[in-house]
């Protein structure tokens, strides 16, 4: 991992983006849970004031939604926690499939605000020769660039495949314009290649055996 000021600033930017998106998602879920539980309480109060019972079907429906939204909030917290723990993985190799699932999960809300839906086509696990935080930073920047340039209402497929020379991560979508390129210096530093034009393809370096 680059230890210089630029590297540190890059990680700080990633932490800022990830926490901002994740906490916003959690806050939204809490706001819905708050409204629905207050509504349930008001329904019971109104029914009691009229000497009746609240509609059990409607109550059941609302409680079901609360349970669903608690589940969603829990998933968002788990993703944020997994991201926080990924900072502890300091080795030169990471699982690109696991990292893609995590970052795409957190980025989904940002994509939705741009009216873009993410779809993942990933193997269970695939090791590449990148530090976890570097890979996550690269992926976040690539997703942000492609989503900003994607056509509204489009689907963005994230496809990860292995090859002789590491792995290939493709970001397939309908582009409205050419995405902002990723900084060449960053790609060079990580040993990553970027093929643009229609579909963005990131060539990720292979995981090398270490030790002896």
């Amino acid at each position, binding site marked *: 991992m680059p230890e210089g000021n630029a590297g540190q600033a890059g990680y700080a930017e990633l932490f800022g983006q990830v926490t901002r998106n994740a*906490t*916003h998602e959690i*806050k*939204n879920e*809490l*706001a*819905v849970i*708050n*409204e*629905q539980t*207050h*509504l349930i309480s*008001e329904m019971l109060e*109104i029914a009691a004031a009229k000497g009746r019972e609240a509609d059990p079907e409607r109550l059941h429906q*609302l409680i079901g*939604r609360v349970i669903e*939204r608690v589940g969603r909030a829990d998933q968002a917290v788990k993703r944020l926690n997994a991201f926080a723990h990924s900072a502890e993985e300091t080795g030169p190799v990471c699982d690109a499939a696991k990292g893609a699932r995590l970052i795409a999960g957190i980025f989904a809300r940002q994509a*939705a*605000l*741009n*009216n873009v839906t993410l779809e993942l086509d990933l193997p269970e696990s695939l090791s590449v020769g990148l530090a976890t935080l570097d890979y996550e930073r690269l992926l976040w920047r690539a997703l942000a660039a492609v989503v900003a340039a994607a056509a*509204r209402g489009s689907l963005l497929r994230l496809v990860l495949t292995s090859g002789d020379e590491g792995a290939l991560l493709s970001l397939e979508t309908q582009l409205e314009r050419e995405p902002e390129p990723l900084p060449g210096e960053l790609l060079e530093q990580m040993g990553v290649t970027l093929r643009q034009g229609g579909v963005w393809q990131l060539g990720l370096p292979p995981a090398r055996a270490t030790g002896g």
Partner: protein
Amino acid sequence: MQDIRVLVVDDDPDFLESVSERLNNRGCVVDTALDGAMALEKIGQNLYDAIVLDLQMPKVDGMETLKQALANKPSLQIILLTGHASVQVGVEAMRLGALDFMEKPADLDQLVEKIKEGKARRIDIDDQTREAAVREALKKYGW
């Protein structure tokens, strides 16, 4: 209070449904929109005493909806509701003409008080606009 007409705009259908029902329990007549584009269409066709507007939405976001809505109907009273309030966004919203800026989860009773304030202000502005139009017409005909 039955004649307070409110448009609630939010991209989350569950949030929209619960807030609408709770406002309805407090005597408001509620209309809803799932995004800024739909909200602008409804604002163009109907008269509302207040608009409760989410900030972050796909297609047209809350700030852009606020700008376009007020450009067409300056007497509109818009209350922005957001997950994460910041001083910067709040100042920008007020500068653009929002009635207020509240953080989710909002206290519904406080929101209703704000909506009532919005209705009073809208009526006041409409009265002033009508009066100005009458004065202008009288002046034109030399009365």
